């Protein structure tokens, strides 16, 4: 048996780029060279490519919850899709439970339970029970075992009262529970959960997080992707922060936060924020990074600022903000969160 539940080495995935979205040309190469280059005898010119995952290395121990944290489009889902054999990597290798994701794809699928696309991954015209029975057959579970397992999961997911109703009549949370039950059917050693709490109400999300913690206790290895930092922080033994297709930091949540322990995080709530104020503050020597985010459709902005010395920054901050109708509504100096780590590393917010 392999030492690692999941092991990826220099995993790369490139896709043909949509117009205007291709990779930047290499240094020294003119921007238009890709377009102008032609093969002999009028063959097709090479397509512009977009690199979604750019050399990801991962080693996840058995029994570990590993959180892959990053903003939308960072490469989380592409990484998961390669690991679960839906996508073939452009280069690099990966092993799941010791099996190669390209050469031993079927053994990989037998070792995995995957939740992708949540509620859309099950049949709405079937009942919850019919869905689970169907997928049990697809996971090659013998009928007698499948029947018991389906009953057990229906009970566990608290679906017993409505198991024989069509999924189209379920709430989003219930559909998500069916999708998770589907992933657990074959009791796979490794679970890949892609944004499992996306779209759930807070209570349903909390219940799901409890379930994930229980699954770890039962020995499952879990690779979880999320862009909810609290979720990654709460659940993960280790976290990989991914941005622009690369893992830019990988450690325990505590260790990641310790990286910016000496920095002070100032969180402001400002009304009537203007971009020029941000430019002015960013120019200050003591300010390391600043991210301003509008709160919904209101005029209120949340400004997240990392500084080396708040005592120097604060008076200048107050002075800059309280002009031209801009008002400071609230201010806190807080402990660094994973999002602050992300801002520190990338200079942008996780949910930008």
């Amino acid at each position, binding site marked *: 048996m392999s030492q690692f539940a999941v092991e990826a080495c220099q995993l790369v995935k490139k*896709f043909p780029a949509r117009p205007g979205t291709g990779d930047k040309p290499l240094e020294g190469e003119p921007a238009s060279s890709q377009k102008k280059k032609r093969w002999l005898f009028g063959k097709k010119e090479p397509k512009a490519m977009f690199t979604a995952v750019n050399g990801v290395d991962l080693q996840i121990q058995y029994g570990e919850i590993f959180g892959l944290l990053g903003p939308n489009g960072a490469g989380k889902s592409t990484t998961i899709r390669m690991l679960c054999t839906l996508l073939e990597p452009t280069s690099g290798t990966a092993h799941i439970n010791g099996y190669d994701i390209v050469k031993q794809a*079927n053994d990989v699928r037998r070792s995995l339970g995957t939740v*992708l696309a949540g509620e859309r991954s*099950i049949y709405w015209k079937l009942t919850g029970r*019919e869905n689970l029975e169907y*997928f049990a*057959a697809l996971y*090659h579970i013998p009928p007698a075992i499948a029947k018991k397992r389906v009953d057990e999961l229906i009970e566990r997911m608290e679906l017993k009262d409505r198991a024989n109703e069509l999924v189209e009549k379920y709430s989003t949370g219930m559909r998500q529970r069916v999708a998770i039950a589907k992933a657990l059917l074959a009791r796979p050693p490794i679970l890949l959960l892609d944004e499992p709490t996306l779209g759930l109400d807070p209570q349903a999300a909390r219940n799901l997080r409890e379930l994930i913690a229980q699954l770890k206790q039962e*020995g499952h290895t879990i690779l979880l992707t999320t862009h909810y930092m609290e979720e990654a922080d709460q659940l993960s033994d280790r976290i990989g922060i991914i941005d622009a297709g690369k893992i830019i930091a990988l450690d325990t949540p505590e260790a990641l936060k310790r990286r910016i322990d000496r920095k002070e995080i100032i969180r402001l709530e400002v009304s009537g924020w203007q971009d020029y104020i941000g430019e002015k503050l960013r120019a200050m020597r003591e300010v390391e990074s600043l991210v301003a985010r509008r709160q919904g459709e209101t005029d209120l902005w949340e400004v997240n600022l990392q500084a080396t010395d708040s005592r120097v920054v604060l008076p200048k901050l107050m002075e800059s903000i309280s002009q031209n109708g801009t008002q400071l509504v609230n201010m806190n100096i807080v402990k660094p969160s994973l999002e602050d780590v992300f801002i520190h590393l990338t200079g942008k917010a996780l949910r930008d």
Partner: protein
Amino acid sequence: METTFIPRSLGQPGFLSEVRAFLAVSRREWIIFTRYPSWIIALFIWPLIFPMMYILTARALSGPDGSGLAVFIATTGATDYIGYIIVGTTVWMWQNIVLWDVGFALRNEQMRGTLESNWLTPTWRFSYLLGQTGPQIISMAMFVGITALEFGLLFGVRLNGSPWMIGLMMLAAIPAIYGLGFAFASLVITVKEANAFVFLIRGMVMIFCGITFPVAILPGWMQSFAKWLPQTYLIHGMRAAAFTNAGIKELLPDLLPLLSFGAFWLAVGYFTFLWLERRARKTGAIGQY
């Protein structure tokens, strides 16, 4: 050193498991089919509506006293023009329904979001297509039965031949009709939109295979082309089986090409599926809708 208990998968791979998976796909399709009542209604109305267009045209062209029918009988050798037409239109409907149902099976799954869920399991992927054929063949058999019943009751169409020979012709046509459907289904998950292809193929069947007229009236080049379409042999053989009491010996000239086309189209369907499935895995097309 800390030891970790690793759960052992409950899946037991093997031939029987693959058969159960195939049956599960068929069962799922059948359940979903029966949960749309509109399809059952279509099963009763479509067999009547589509051939009626040709039957009424034939009635108008044969003149008020039906004297024009003599020309038709002389050309085709068939005395029952309604029966002649419904065999052709039923074969056309069969190919049409297979192109929409089987041909778009994977695409529909892709749009629902369930294709990836199926693809994530260790089941042989071609089973998802093969499994679709079971309920499709059952519903098509019902379609043929309902057609025979409706036209028997309303127009007095009577089958002179053996129902077993009709069944044999249809059975022999399954690999060709569904093989084309498999190739089509694989193409559709990559190109996403394929309505134009459906219209082209069913148009070709309509014009070249003689659904309401004998192929012999076509110009020479069209007759040569018709020989490359399995539906030509199916229509010819089914008419012979249904109305001239033809036995296996008489049907062999249609059965043999049908089976050969079947082997060809099944192989094309299977290899197209393998090729385009691999391509979709490389381009990420499986998850795109």
